[in-house]
């Protein structure tokens, strides 16, 4: 029998690696072998985009899942999931910069400023960038746990940005983006009791004006 730690190390982690590297490997192979359908760029963008968003939602599901199951080893998956989400988001952005805009910074700037869904997409990636850069143990040490944690709350904003990006780009078929939105809301609601508890003062503070009777 494998222990929980061993399952994570020898089963779950390898699966995440296989999927996270498998998607770009398959897209690259398909691009050279006419294997991505009639509109290969659209296929590349759909898979990297949805992959990144699913990665973000999985990253956000670790904490509620850990609390509910008491399976604390799950935390060891969080960074890996987050980094794969960032990796796919980066490929998604690159495919836009290269294939859609042919590397033209002028066109990109115009597109970002004129179109809210492009703005949301780029913002999402920019929000994820500092999280990816500070994902090492050394960064946590240098920043200090509290500050590191506050910085990494940007993931909520990033996930919301990703869902909006998807929702705003579709023509009329809002079903799939709405599904992602619902999953995000669910993951946030799962955190509510805990946030409430954290906000409630241990003992009433007479100097806290926000809690003064009206």
């Amino acid at each position: 029998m494998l222990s929980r730690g061993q399952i994570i190390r020898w089963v779950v982690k390898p699966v995440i690696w296989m999927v996270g590297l498998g998607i770009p490997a398959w897209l690259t192979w398909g691009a050279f072998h006419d294997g991505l359908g009639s509109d290969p760029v659209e296929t590349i963008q759909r898979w990297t985009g949805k992959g990144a968003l699913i990665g973000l939602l999985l990253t956000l599901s670790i904490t509620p899942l850990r609390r509910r199951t008491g399976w604390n080893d799950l935390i060891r998956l969080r960074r890996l999931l987050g980094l794969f989400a960032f990796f796919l988001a980066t490929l998604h952005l690159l495919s836009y910069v290269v294939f859609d805009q042919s590397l033209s910074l002028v066109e990109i700037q115009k597109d970002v400023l004129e179109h809210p869904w492009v703005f949301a997409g780029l913002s999402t990636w920019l929000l994820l960038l500092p999280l990816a850069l500070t994902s090492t143990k050394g960064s946590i040490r240098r920043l200090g746990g509290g500050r590191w944690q506050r910085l990494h709350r940007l993931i909520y904003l990033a996930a919301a940005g990703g869902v909006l990006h998807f929702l705003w780009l579709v023509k009329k078929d809002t079903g799939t983006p709405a599904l992602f939105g619902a999953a995000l809301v669910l993951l946030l609601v799962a955190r509510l009791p805990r946030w409430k508890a954290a906000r409630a003062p241990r003992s009433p503070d007479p100097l806290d004006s926000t809690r003064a009777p009206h």
Partner: protein
Amino acid sequence: MIIRRGGEIPSSEITPYQHYLDRRAFMLAAGAAALGAVLPPRLGAWPRRSDDKLTPYKDVIGYNNYYEFGTDKASPAKLAGGLKTDPWTIEVAGAVKRPGTYSYDDLVRPHPAEERVYRHRCVEGWSMVVPWMGFPLGDLIRRLEPSSQAKYVEFTTLNDPAQMPGQRSNVLPWPYVEGLRMDEALHPLTLMVMGVYGKPLPNQNGAPLRLIVPWKYGFKGGKAIVRIRFTDTQPRTTWNIAIPREYGFYANVNPQVAHPRWSQARERRIGEFFKQDTLMFNGYADQVASLYAGMNLRINY
């Protein structure tokens, strides 16, 4: 311009075939064979760019926006197979001297099939180059004799959720309705289409009868048409009803007028990785720009 006339087919030649050949397939085959024989090479007068290679058949029939069969581009090819297109009737209504319900054959048969290679530009920013088989809508309109009140033509697509699973969702208001101003409908480039690549139109491409207006975004081309109505008021068209700010009645391909959510300046040819510039009126400006002289195309998008 590639307009290859199939020519008149003597009825004596057709009659014996009727017993064992599907008439539609026969008409198209005859048209295609005749074309093959007569033809000037494809070079020349057509305003195509050097890279206007035909989009492969598999992409033309496998990558379709046809929300009656789902919003995914691959689902029409998967789900449209069961659509019954024979028998098929088309109602002709409104301000016209010869209204009534016509069988497909009665409506289409007097018009010889021609092959026309047109650029096909989707409002989403992708495009194809497609060899359609069809005849000018104007020929049909003249035969139906619209009255002087007829200022617009409206095309209605089949509404049958039992056969068209996409219609069970309310993603768009059904049935799908499209329309043209009379001068646009009579323009020689405007085509009633029954085939593609020399074969009868596959269901996912709008069989048995669809509209193609090559200088407009693809959604103007109603598929599986069951009703043609002549009217003096501008028809209320489906995408315009759904999202009026994004889809207008005219929907002329125009690289200078952006869709509110994306630029229309460039397009991606299906199968290619990089984009190319979109041409005014999809490259048919010489033929159609005069239809819109004096109109503000930013307002009439």
